[in-house]
């Protein structure tokens, strides 16, 4: 296996500024803290002018369901903070059509205005980003 690795390369400042980041939400609400942790990364990146996009993949779309009542479980409602994203200039959200179909959902059932992409478009979407974080 020919593996060649250029050492000592670092991004030029201008290159660094052009970086963009995709954050993937893969877990349902209340499962663990990963959705909340991922959201906090989004807010932090926004403070650093790093362009952020969000992908709600698999059970991640369940985080967006309307009519949740987190307070019944004495939990904070993550959707309130998700709704704040637009105020942080984070407005690029994606879901996959198959995930909607699997749970018999439509975009109207979701609390954010997501772009629906097909399963086949997922790989091309990922390709557009310099960094992907998938907690």
């Amino acid at each position, binding site marked *: 296996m020919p593996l060649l690795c250029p050492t000592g390369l670092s991004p030029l400042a201008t290159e660094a500024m052009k970086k963009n980041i995709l954050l993937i939400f893969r877990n349902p609400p209340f499962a663990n803290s990963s959705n909340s942790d991922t959201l906090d990364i989004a807010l932090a990146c*926004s403070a650093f002018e790093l362009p952020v996009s969000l992908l709600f993949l698999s059970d991640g779309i369940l985080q967006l369901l309307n009519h949740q009542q987190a307070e019944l479980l004495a939990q904070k409602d993550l959707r*309130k*903070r998700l709704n704040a994203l637009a*105020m942080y*200039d984070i407005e690029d959200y994606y879901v996959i059509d198959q995930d909607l179909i699997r749970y018999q959902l439509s975009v109207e059932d979701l609390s954010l205005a997501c772009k629906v992409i097909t399963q086949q478009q997922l790989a091309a979407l990922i390709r557009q980003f310099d960094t992907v974080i998938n907690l």
Partner: protein
Amino acid sequence: MNKQQALALLDDEGYLLDLALWDQELAEALAKVDQFNLTSKHWEVIYIIREFYQEYQLSPAMRPLVKMMANKYGAEKGRSIYLLKLFPQSPPKQAARYAGLPKPLNCL
């Protein structure tokens, strides 16, 4: 309220320990201890920031605070320069203190 009474209600960064205790009078008292004068312009920001928290369960950072000010009070007040004149240390942090909200997400 004297300085000692006020400090007892705050953590050592000056944020309210029990958010439920907040009211306007308390905010004025805290400002007085800081020798900081809350004008009606400051109150506009304090109310905006509380509104933001009610809606999003989050103390806003600078960018959303500016946005929200612009939405509600127009472009002149929706500028970071304007907010920095009112709260010279850091508008999101200082206003969150007087608004009785948690410290904004620690980003730096």
